[in-house]
């Protein structure tokens, strides 16, 4: 079999985990495509390669459905950051993170960082209805609102992807308070056997976002990317010290050398 075409080799991996319908795919869409659109339930997983300065960061969007649960630990293997996503209007979605998803992160790097993200903040929080991302055009937003209202009217799903509340202006009850998320973050650290004092503080690692309005989405991803930078650099260093001889590289340098020595 011929050598498989390699895509740009990612330097580091970030994984989105969370129950179905909390908005993992929408978060990734909002971040990568700057818009909110209808998504269908993710099958298996998908990933996106983000160019972050000179680095390639692969962001894995996983399937929240129970059916694909078994694949989670494989996706998490070697992850430098895990985004544990819940829905602020759904207490159960936070509980699921602890019950089902936290154990999947066992395969992640030892120095993996964890972010706890409450999505759909626009449904409970007026300030999240205004985007913090300057590039969200107003007409874009109205379009989104239409987009989002239509599925949940028919949906019998216990955790609707959104509710018509945002249209009528009535706020939904917020089931998960930021303190709950912070407490969960504390339990993650304990689960990992990490010292709370030497780890990143909860206030830095807990976010409330809205993929619909773009609220806090860039802030979330960019904060994480900044935090995984040391991990990237260490990985690059290890690769440099690797005893494997890279033929491609050797060829490159030798041809260069011969060119300079010529005439």
């Amino acid at each position: 079999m011929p050598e498989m075409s390699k895509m740009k080799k990612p330097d580091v991996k970030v994984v989105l985990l969370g129950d179905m319908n909390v908005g993992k795919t929408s978060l990734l869409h909002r971040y990568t495509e700057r818009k909110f659109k209808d998504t269908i339930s993710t099958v298996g997983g998908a990933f996106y390669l983000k160019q972050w300065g000179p680095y390639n960061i692969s962001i894995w969007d996983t399937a929240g459905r129970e059916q694909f649960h078994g694949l989670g630990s494989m996706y998490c293997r070697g992850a430098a950051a895990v985004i544990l996503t819940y829905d602020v209007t759904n207490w159960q979605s936070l509980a699921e993170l602890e019950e089902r998803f936290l154990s999947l992160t066992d395969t992640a790097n030892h120095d993996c960082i964890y972010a706890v993200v409450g999505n759909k903040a626009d449904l409970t929080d007026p300030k999240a209805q205004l985007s913090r991302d300057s590039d969200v055009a107003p007409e874009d937003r109205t379009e989104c609102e239409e987009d989002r209202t239509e599925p949940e009217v028919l949906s019998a799903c216990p955790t609707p992807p959104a509710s018509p509340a945002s249209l009528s202006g009535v706020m939904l009850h917020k089931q998960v308070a930021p303190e709950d998320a912070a407490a969960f973050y504390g339990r993650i650290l304990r689960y990992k056997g990490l010292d709370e004092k030497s780890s990143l503080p909860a206030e830095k690692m807990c976010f409330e976002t809205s993929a619909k309005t773009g609220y806090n989405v860039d802030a979330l991803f960019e904060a994480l990317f900044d935090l995984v930078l040391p991990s990237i650099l260490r990985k690059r260093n290890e690769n440099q010290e690797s005893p494997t001889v890279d033929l491609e590289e050797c060829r490159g340098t030798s041809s260069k050398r011969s060119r300079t020595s010529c005439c």
Partner: protein
Amino acid sequence: MSVKAFELVPAVERDLLMGDKARINIECIECCGKHLYLGTNDCFIHHFLLDEVTSSKGKLSYSAQKLLHKYLGLKKPVAELRAASALERLIVLCDGIVFLVDMVTLETVPSAAGGGAKIRGVTAFCINENPVNGDPFCVEMGVLSSKRRTVQIYMVYEDRVQLVKEVSTPEQPCAVSLDGYFLCLALATQYMILNYNTGASQDLFPYNSEDRRPIVKRIGREEFLLAAPGGLGMFANAEGVSQRAPVNWSESVIGAAVCFPYVVALDESFITIHSMLDQQLKQTLSFRDGHILQDFEGKVILASTKAVYVLVPLPLEKQIQDLLASHRVEEALILTEGAQRNIPKDKFQILHKRILQQAGFIQFGQLQFLEAKEHFRKGQLDVRELISLYPLLLPASSSFTRCHPPLHEFADLNHLAQGDQEKVLRCKRFLISYLGEVRSTEVANGCREDVDTALLKLYAEQDHDSLLDLLASENACLLADSVPWLEKYHKYFALGLLYHYNGQDSAALQVWIRVVDGELQDSTRSDLYEYIVDFLCSCANLDLIWKYADWALQKDPTNGVHIFTKRPGSKDQPELNSDDVITYLEKHNQALLLYLEHLVLERRIQKEKFHTHLAVLYLERVLSLISESPKDEEKLTRARERLQALLRESNLYRVQYLLGKTESCEQLLLERATLHGKLEEHDKALHILVHKLRDFPSAEAFCTWASSSRDSAYRQQLFHLLLGVYLDGNQTAAGGGNGDLEMAAVDLLNRHGEVFDAVRVLRMLPEGWSLQLLRPFLGRAVSASMHACRTSQIALGLSHSENLQLLHDRLKERKKPIFVSEKKGCHLCHNTFSEPDVVCLPGGVPVHTHCVAQRVRDSPTKRQLTNSSNHT
């Protein structure tokens, strides 16, 4: 969705294999080069020679020739066949036994003396295609046995098999694949990676092997494709990490293989083809009773229970072209870029560029200009390909021919737009912006003329503002092509610019002049006449100026003369000779006047000729205005003011000449007075002013003017002269005179009292004048006299005190007394002193008073220097 990535081609038809025996089914296949082996359920191995036949139309088909078949004698289906071509052996699994048969004769290989050639109790085995062991004459094989939870590693030689390693697994394995030291295993409830060398294991993910048949397929170096729950095709590498997103199969996949960049999978009724690049389903082929799907050295072979087929990939380029043909630009590009590694670099670059260009044209056709532009840019499109879509834009002289095969399906823009003028317009606007962007980049290298000419045509046609910018800056517009185009759209001003840019200033001027004259219509510039004047003004070619200035001056002498007056005096421009200009302007009176004014008044050129000429022209104008009837008083006044100003201020014109010219006209007395003044004939001048004009303010002003640059004595003399004229006139006109001269004299004295010598004035004045009449003059005279007296007294006093001060200082300086005695002699007469009064010379030398007096009398100039003092 559908891409045609593969074609299903029959290889071995049912008839050839089993004729009319309905019970016989294919159980397994192996293909090695042209040799195809089939294992059947009746324990036969069939050997075919498979030849590729390409028809004249390029269609691929297979012809199979049966070489041999052989009964293995076990009455059980042949479960697995694998070729070890270097050993010329087939490894066969039948009835739980692995054994070797000769590839050519299909005879079972007898066990060698040293060891067995059979393994019993085998459920499945796999060959290591990437063995760590370098021996080419043995094959590494992973074997799963039915009883034990182990995987055994065997080395297969020509006539024997040898167990080299046995590793235990946590559960009963049911499928295996091998790469290097890594075993990828499907256990009863999960997949795992196991390193048989170190024993290290890595769980992958859970999977229930009872629900679905597991698939463990090595797809490349240390990478495996696995059937995952939910009908997923998951990728995993030896480290247990997934580096590609999964593909979404159906739940009942039987077999899968990778034929880059596609994942091919088989279920009961379909072959599905997913792209590994975007995970999307690309093609579905109906395939009934599918049974086996395997890839052999890149060739994907399928089998139903009765027949064998080859899944032939269409050439990548064809696939890409198909995608483009159905306008699936993104997919085509992903496929192209994904194939980068499979195509030689130089070939890839050519292909990639071409695909990008084609993609750009598709998006262009859909009016997605932003995307189109990006692809044109990346694909380094020869911009003329795009220009050539627009009829008539490429210059006739352009050597360009469209690339073949064509990059797009459009004949031209009209074909593309199908008569939709709005579309045409948008395309044109796009081209304008695109050409505007690329014309200064390397994209336009080698075809700058074509680009700029096309842009010019578009600008002209679309009435675009940038047309003028294009022509006014550096450009490569072709004259021959652009001229008719600009004429067609009445862009005559622009046409002139184009001529100018090409060094044809004369042609430019001719076009512009015709526009100004109304022969041609172009409203680009309402001030085109001024533009022409400016143009000529800064024109380096003097011949052109002489040629076209005439027209400009006739059109508007006032502005036309700017050609000469506003000429910037820069170094690289030839200077115009003023005399030539004056000669040239002879027939343009007004312009000549303006030009002379420019020379004399603005540039202040000190040449008698110009000054006289200007004065004469002024004079002539005044004279002509005077002779007009009815007179335009206002004009006349202005003309005279100018004349007078020049006469007063210039010292260069020929006074006598002008005086001669004014003599004839009785109305120009003021001017004559001025001229007399210039000749210092002040009495004549004043005579005219006082007696002829009786214009006393002018007479006074004359005195002030005529003495303006002289000393006060001259001024006094002039005023006295005027006073004299007043008083004389008064006497001669006594009796008949109405006394206005007298009043003028009084006013003069009262107004300019300070100029007069009061004593002289008093002597001149008639006896009868009342003191009251002259009171202001006298008052001022007395006070002036008093003032002078007091001022001089103060000056005297100040000088005196200064003198004393200096004296004091000097004494202080010298300090020592001067001794005078009877024994000492005077230095001047050498007699002794007889009295204490002496004079001290500088240096403290005492001398007789009378001796000094004597000396002072001899040299009067030194009077000031001596000071007398008494010392006793």
